[in-house]
């Protein structure tokens, strides 16, 4: 997986890959921020957990309400104070909120994921 492509996403601070369990398998971090591989590893686990929860909720919501259009999920984003993590599949990016283009980030990840 070419993480350097994800480093072209607007406002990107880091790009990373992870296993289905959330273990970090690769990362590129731009200089000058506080992100570390340890933080990205925790972030990846968090995102795997949240994607699973969101899948359960989407499936339940569609069954209960009859409203379609959620599944299959195309990604999840955690919006922090200064940055957002955007993930899908086994890769993700961290983008500065100030420069964040969420749609571009989701599209880039979808184009990259295996």
């Amino acid at each position, binding site marked *: 997986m070419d993480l350097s492509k994800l480093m072209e996403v607007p406002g990107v601070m880091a790009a990373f890959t992870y296993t289905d369990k959330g273990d970090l398998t690769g990362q590129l971090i731009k200089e000058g921020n506080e992100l570390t591989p340890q*933080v990205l590893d925790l972030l990846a686990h968090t995102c795997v957990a949240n994607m699973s*929860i969101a899948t359960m909720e989407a499936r339940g*919501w569609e069954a209960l*309400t009859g409203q379609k*259009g959620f*599944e299959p*999920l195309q990604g999840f*984003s*955690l919006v922090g104070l200064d940055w957002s993590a955007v993930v899908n599949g086994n890769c993700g990016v961290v983008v500065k909120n100030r420069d964040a283009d969420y749609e571009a980030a*989701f599209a880039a990840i979808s184009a990259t994921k295996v």
Partner: protein
Amino acid sequence: MHIAKQLMAIPGVIAAGEYAYRGDRYTYEGGLTDEYARMASILCRANTLNASMQAEMFSSFAEHCGCRPLQGWVVRGKQVSVCAVGNFFCMLENRQGVLNDVMTVMRAKVGDISDNVMKAMYSKIGGDVTEQLV
């Protein structure tokens, strides 16, 4: 103008609402029944609390890593997405530009964008339908 009304002015927004952090109170606008809006409010509140707890945990690894306090989250579905920022939620179609517009408005009202919301939006997308927001 109420935030939910402002969000509903964005073409592609299906429903928007506000929920109480504690208790069962909620208000909403758009294409949901009252019962579905109640469910959506509970779901968004639970997820926001969960994600906030996760953001707190990040600080044990890097105190000033920039995640805390959490603003919200986005679930991107195949054709529909859900955003939650603060105690507001929004359900929207995955049409070009809608998610970015919604996030800009939500962050401006309850998040981290403190300067002029229109300035922030025009700087990103060049300005067209967003005139309806003010």
